[in-house]
């Protein structure tokens, strides 16, 4: 049943403008990250380990992700769920034996796969961009992949939150508003101490997963991302998502 339902979710994505949204998500991050190529001293640093060209790209990418993901994930979730409100799809699924919470979980699996793919594509394309412009310094695979993995977790938690919000409140403006507010939270968390960012889940976690940071003197330092915090966020988000969708299952139409 789950497999057929997931296949249906991919079929429903047709003409839902998922591709343009994902394109903006990936191309936006790539474009903003690539601005770093034009920054002063970047070209000179490409062959110099002390210049940390890969870390400079990572810093640029983590900033662009933080600016774009909250709103685009809200749009993506809203598109998936609004069709159920508009087309009486909750009822159609329910009378076919698929409870609303189950449908939300199915949507999470299907559209979540798109989110994961987009996140991996962002990371991969920024790496490819770096390689193409000719960075010859050794690629910090662990740091890069670690950041990508943590970003996947934060994006999925945020996406799940927006799915629930869009399913619970029929007016999709609320989800969009929260998306915009999310950008604001994510941006202000960059100026907060790390411990305070923990209190702005999940948006504050974009700051917690940041692998590199510019100091006031302009130097770029590597950070130890909060793996434990992000894993805790993922676990708590997963449990909450299950609990809320179970509650949706019992909701009357």
């Amino acid at each position, binding site marked *: 049943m789950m497999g*057929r*339902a997931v*296949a*249906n979710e991919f*079929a*429903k994505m*047709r*003409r*839902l403008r998922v591709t343009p949204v994902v394109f903006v998500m990936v191309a936006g991050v790539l474009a903003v990250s690539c601005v770093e190529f034009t920054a002063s001293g970047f070209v000179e640093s490409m062959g110099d380990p002390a210049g940390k060209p890969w870390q400079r790209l990572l810093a640029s990418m983590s900033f662009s992700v933080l600016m774009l993901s909250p709103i685009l994930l809200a749009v993506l979730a809203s598109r998936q769920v609004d*069709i159920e409100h*508009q*087309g*009486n*799809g909750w*009822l*159609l*699924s*329910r*009378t*076919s*034996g*698929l409870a609303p919470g189950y449908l939300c979980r199915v949507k999470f699996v299907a559209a979540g796969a798109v989110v994961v793919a987009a996140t991996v594509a962002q990371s991969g394309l920024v790496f490819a961009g770096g390689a193409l412009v000719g960075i010859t310094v050794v690629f910090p695979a662990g740091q890069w992949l670690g950041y990508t993995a943590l970003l996947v977790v934060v994006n999925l938690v945020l996406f799940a939150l927006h799915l629930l919000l869009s399913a619970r409140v029929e007016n999709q403006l609320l989800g969009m508003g929260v998306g915009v507010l999310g950008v604001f939270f994510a941006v202000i968390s960059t100026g907060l101490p790390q411990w305070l960012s923990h209190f702005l889940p999940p948006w504050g976690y974009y700051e917690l997963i940041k692998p590199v940071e510019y100091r006031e003197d302009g130097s770029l330092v590597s950070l130890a991302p909060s793996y434990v915090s992000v894993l805790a966020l993922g676990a708590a988000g997963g449990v909450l998502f299950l609990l809320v969708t179970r509650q949706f299952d019992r909701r*009357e*139409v």
Partner: protein
Amino acid sequence: MIITHDLGKTYGNRAVVDGLDLRVPEGCVYGFLGPNGSGKSTTMKMLLSLVRPTSGEIHIMGRPMRRSTRRELLGHIGSLIESPPAYGHLTGRENMRLVQRLLDLTDNQVTQAVRTVRLRDHLEKKVRDYSLGMKQRLGLAMALAREPRLLILDEPTNGLDPAGIEEIRRLLTKVADDGTTVMVSSHLLGEIDRTATVLGILGNGRMLFQGTRDELFARSVPDVLVDTSEPQRAAALTARWHTSRLDGATVRLSGLDDKATAGVVSLLVHEDIEIHGVRRDSQSLEDVFMDLTEERGL
């Protein structure tokens, strides 16, 4: 096909459905009637497990409708509740394919359902460009594709023009002829009068009547009409014992059985009032329905 025992649904202190004992025989078209707000939709939603009953039990196809049996039973029940479900950004064919995949149906089942509702020529159109009648037919095709043993339709003719209503009527007859039990609700008797073989009339969440058309007629006693030379005096005389009023030159007496009618005739003869004729008023099913619902102040 459907049996409920003491089925009830309460929201706060308000009982929307109260002590309902439904009996829907297999193979019939069950016309579920009642004024707006009488509890028809809530009852149908309870049958489909969309709303949890506050009290009572539901048995469908001999099995209790429970969380554990819901999915399997729903596989044999087609339904159309509220507005017809369909994704506007997809075509009719793509919508049908969703149902096909979800319920693991064959191409033949889908083709047959589409043919039944005569929607074959519109399958490539996006549903957002469909008329209400076409959406209704697509909803029916989705319900029929699983080849249901039971079809539950909540006011399927709502918002349709006369041609659309006739189309749905024809469809219901065809589906029932093919052996599917159909339960269809309406607040207008005229819409399902000709298709329903069994009627259930609901008022304020309670069953006012359940049975065949003939049984419904038998339950209601038509007025007795007396044509006489002195209608005013006859009306005044009979008003002492019966509900009587003047209808032109005719005296109309309500609620009289045959014995009471004989008594009225004797009385008038005894008072030397000439009687030109005594007959029962002709009554349509609509009148009976209205009597029944108005009687209960609905």
